[in-house]
């Protein structure tokens, strides 16, 4: 995977033009709601994947990247909106740049256009789960087990595994159907052969007895053993081979048809009665009928699913798994209707088999009628045979059965009145034929037997092939399911272990005994968590929202670790822990640092304190942090920086836009003074709501720095360190001067602090205020590393006052006397 080096974003989402140097390191972007933070996440996600989750995920049906990806000012010019990302691929030890336009999200420009770089970018594009937003966090925790299973399967890309399993299943079902049909064909052909041979048992001895009897009549050698290639008519000279017609055989076949027709009224009565009872129940209970009709439709739809588009309504689902699950849940809801449905189809199948038997005995009669030039009778029998085939097909579906109610009531076979007479006439015609001589009878018997047995053998060969295919398909399917289940269970166990470890880490001192159980079961994934040793409950049962947020992130991290392993090098986290309390956030930083030291996280938060905590925890530095001050349509996010902010304020003042400059100054002072107070452990009158304003903090930080510099001078004196003594004294003097200048402007500062009246000032009034604050705040900053000076260790007994680069490093510890 990747490390993000730089991003250039232009006219995408809320951003006009923005360059960020991520330096391949974890990066924090903070700013108030609506300041454009998520726009950066959207842009990076778009650059890497060509997609923006917020525009294509759930609840975004009316949104599209093309229409809503560009800045609102450029919706008609999507070509102007693009993202250019410079990315490092550790595995290749190479960097590449990808430029993706909103107008052509699937056609990025990649530099260098080397095959390995292009393939590496394609791999990244295949991992949209690198982006985690707050609404996605909770989807793993507060959700139905079936939905959780689907969501986790999506994040783990298990959909492709499910696709393979589904295809193997459909293939094995189809081949099982082919095998069943082949079995039916073999049965039909065996019956036809036995009818011709006039044998009751289909054993080798019985068959050879009747065959050898005819062979003896023709003075042919008997067949000793019936083998696969044995020809029953072997030895009958080609010239002597009579037509297939054998009078006695034909009479037996006609008798079989006649008997079947005569007894047809008694056949299938039980099945017909069962179906009529079922149909009557449905007439009396419209709700049941409704449920069953819907069930039949859904059942059909489920069998036709082949992709994420619903075959019933064309609704586009996120994936095939979601669609299948939706249909399965609907089926589950109509169990009573389901039982009736099953009973009807079972009776239909039984009756269908009876119809097939009639069709089977009619076939020789139709052939005979045709051969005898009895076209009308052939057509009559053939017509009825086709009707019975149609009936058989209709009996395989609920709609078909429902449509057959009248027919089943009257007599399912709908025997045409002329059929018995037609069979009778054909029988009479055959009987009227002169008896075949013993030789001819024997010849036709053997040649017909050979034709019938060859048909049977072909059927057997087809059945063997079908059985081999069906068996192999079933073995492959069962094996795949077994492997899949074992691996998924193992995966869930691993994920569960990591999830608990991560969660315990961020809740150190609170829920150190936390345990969780992920239980996969028939497409569901139950998650239960231990609530302070009171038992295992669903996460939403007793845990606070903050804890649930934490669980969501931990589960995400556990899943990503299992999905990508040591390739989990990059993730975008968009305000994902906004309701986690302060103590847990500190631990969260520790989790990211300790457990994912090689992963670059880009984290956004609307909470500046949270951003500051990341910095203090060493997760990010000032160089890898960005603060958005505010946002407007014209400017996009306004980036706050110590250098940049003064330039922006000066520019606004120069253009006499005092209100704008005043707002920027106030925002900046309000941002940095609490940070300074925190860095120096400045004291302020305690407020339970924690809402300290400038009036509370500004005097406090000035006083604290003054005190610390005094201590530094004293400590230097005790060590006889003249250089530090001079440095501390100079800084103290500078602070005093800056404070004095600020004091001279206090009339204005106070107005600003207490009444926010800067906005009403004139240019000449405001310029000295800006200069005073600039000078004052610079006393708390290191020019070399642009970081604030702070005490170490934090607390009542600091030992040094220093900046990040140590250019400022004043000892506060006195030499022991």
């Amino acid at each position, binding site marked *: 995977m990747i490390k993000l080096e730089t991003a250039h974003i232009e006219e995408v989402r809320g951003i006009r033009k923005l360059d960020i140097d991520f330096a391949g390191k974890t990066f924090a972007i903070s700013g108030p709601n609506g300041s454009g933070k998520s726009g950066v996440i959207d842009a990076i996600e778009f650059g890497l994947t060509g997609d923006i989750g917020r525009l294509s995920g759930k609840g975004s049906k009316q949104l599209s990247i093309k229409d809503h990806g560009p800045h609102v000012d450029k919706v008609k010019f999507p070509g102007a909106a693009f993202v250019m990302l410079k990315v490092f691929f550790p595995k290749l030890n190479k960097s590449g740049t990808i430029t993706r336009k909103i107008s052509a999200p699937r056609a990025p420009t990649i530099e260098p256009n080397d095959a390995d770089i292009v393939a590496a970018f394609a791999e990244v594009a295949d991992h949209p789960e690198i982006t985690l937003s707050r609404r996605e966090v909770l989807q793993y925790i507060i959700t139905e087990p079936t939905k959780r299973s689907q969501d986790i399967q999506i994040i783990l890309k*298990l959909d492709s*595994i499910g696709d*393979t399993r589904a295809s193997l299943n459909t293939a094995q079902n189809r081949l099982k159907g082919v095998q069943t049909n082949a079995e039916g064909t073999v049965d039909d052909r065996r019956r036809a052969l036995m009818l011709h041979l006039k044998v009751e048992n289909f054993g080798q001895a019985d068959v050879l007895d009747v065959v050898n009897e005819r062979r003896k009549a023709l003075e042919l050698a008997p067949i000793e053993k019936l083998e696969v290639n044995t020809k029953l008519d072997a030895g009958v000279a080609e010239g002597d081979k009579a037509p297939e017609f054998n009078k006695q055989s034909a009479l037996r076949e006609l008798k079989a048809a006649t008997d079947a027709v005569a007894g047809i009224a008694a056949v299938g009565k039980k099945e017909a009665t069962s179906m009529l009872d079922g149909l009557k129940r449905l007439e009396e209970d419209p709700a049941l009928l409704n449920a069953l009709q819907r069930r039949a439709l859904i059942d059909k739809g489920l069998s036709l699913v082949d992709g994420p588009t619903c075959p019933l309504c064309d609704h586009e689902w996120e994936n095939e798994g979601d669609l299948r699950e939706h249909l399965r849940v609907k089926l589950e809801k109509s169990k009573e209707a389901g039982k009736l449905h099953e009973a009807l189809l079972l009776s239909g199948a039984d009756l269908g088999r009876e119809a097939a038997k009639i069709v089977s005995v009619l076939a020789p009669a139709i052939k005979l009628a045709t051969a005898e030039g009895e076209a009308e009778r052939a057509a009559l029998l053939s017509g009825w045979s086709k009707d019975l085939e149609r009936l058989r097909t209709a009996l395989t579906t609920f709609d078909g059965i429902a449509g057959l109610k009248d027919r089943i009531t009257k007599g399912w076979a709908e025997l045409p009145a002329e059929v018995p007479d037609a069979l009778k006439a054909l029988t009479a015609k055959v009987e009227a034929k002169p008896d075949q001589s013993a030789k001819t009878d024997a010849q036709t018997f053997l040649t017909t037997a050979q034709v019938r047995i060859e048909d049977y053998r072909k059927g057997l060969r087809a059945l063997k092939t079908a059985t081999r295919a069906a068996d*192999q398909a079933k073995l*492959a399917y069962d094996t795949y399911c077994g492997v899949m289940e074992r*691996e998924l269970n193992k995966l869930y166990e691993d994920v569960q272990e990591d999830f608990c470890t991560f969660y315990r880490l961020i809740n150190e001192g609170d829920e150190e005994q936390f345990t969780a159980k992920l239980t996969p079961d028939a497409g569901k994934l139950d998650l239960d968590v231990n609530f302070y040793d009171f038992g295992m409950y669903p996460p939403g049962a007793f845990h606070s929202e903050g804890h649930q947020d934490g669980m969501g992130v931990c589960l995400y991290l556990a899943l990503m670790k299992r999905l990508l392993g040591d*390739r989990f090098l990059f993730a975008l986290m968009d305000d994902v822990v906004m309701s986690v309390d302060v103590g847990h956030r500190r631990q969260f930083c520790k989790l990211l640092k300790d457990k994912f030291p090689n992963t670059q996280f880009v984290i956004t938060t609307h909470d500046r304190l949270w951003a500051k905590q990341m910095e203090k925890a060493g997760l990010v530095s000032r160089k890898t942090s960005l603060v958005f001050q505010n946002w407007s349509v014209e400017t996009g996010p306004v980036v706050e920086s110590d250098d940049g902010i003064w330039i922006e304020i000066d520019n606004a003042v120069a253009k006499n836009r005092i209100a704008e400059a005043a707002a920027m100054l106030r925002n900046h002072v309000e941002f940095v003074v609490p940070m300074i107070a925190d860095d120096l452990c400045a004291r302020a009158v305690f407020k339970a709501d924690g809402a300290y304003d400038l009036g509370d903090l500004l005097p406090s930080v000035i006083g604290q720095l003054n005190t610390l510099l005094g201590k530094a001078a004293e400590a230097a004196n005790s060590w006889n360190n003249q250089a530090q003594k001079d440095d501390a004294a100079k800084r103290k003097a500078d602070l005093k001067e800056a404070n004095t200048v600020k004091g001279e402007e206090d009339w204005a500062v106070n107005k600003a602090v207490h009444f926010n009246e800067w906005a009403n000032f004139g240019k000449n009034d405001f310029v000295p205020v800006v200069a005073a604050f600039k000078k004052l705040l610079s006393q708390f900053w290191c020019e070399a590393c642009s970081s604030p000076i702070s005490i170490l260790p934090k607390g009542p007994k600091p030992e040094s006052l220093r900046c990040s680069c140590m250019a400022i490093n004043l000892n506060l510890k006195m030499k022991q006397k």
Partner: protein
Amino acid sequence: MSTLQDTIAKKFFDSLKEIKEVEPHVVAQLQALLDAGGKPKVDDLVKIFTSPPDQEAK
């Protein structure tokens, strides 16, 4: 680290090769189909399972 899909595919074929009823040419063709990526088509699978062994095909 291989992906879960890769692991499942590898173990699937390892297990399948151990089953004597599943013919080697079927395993080989299945492997080629799954290696090609994407959702395997049912028609292709049916063709593989019904394909005759090499000696019968000649």
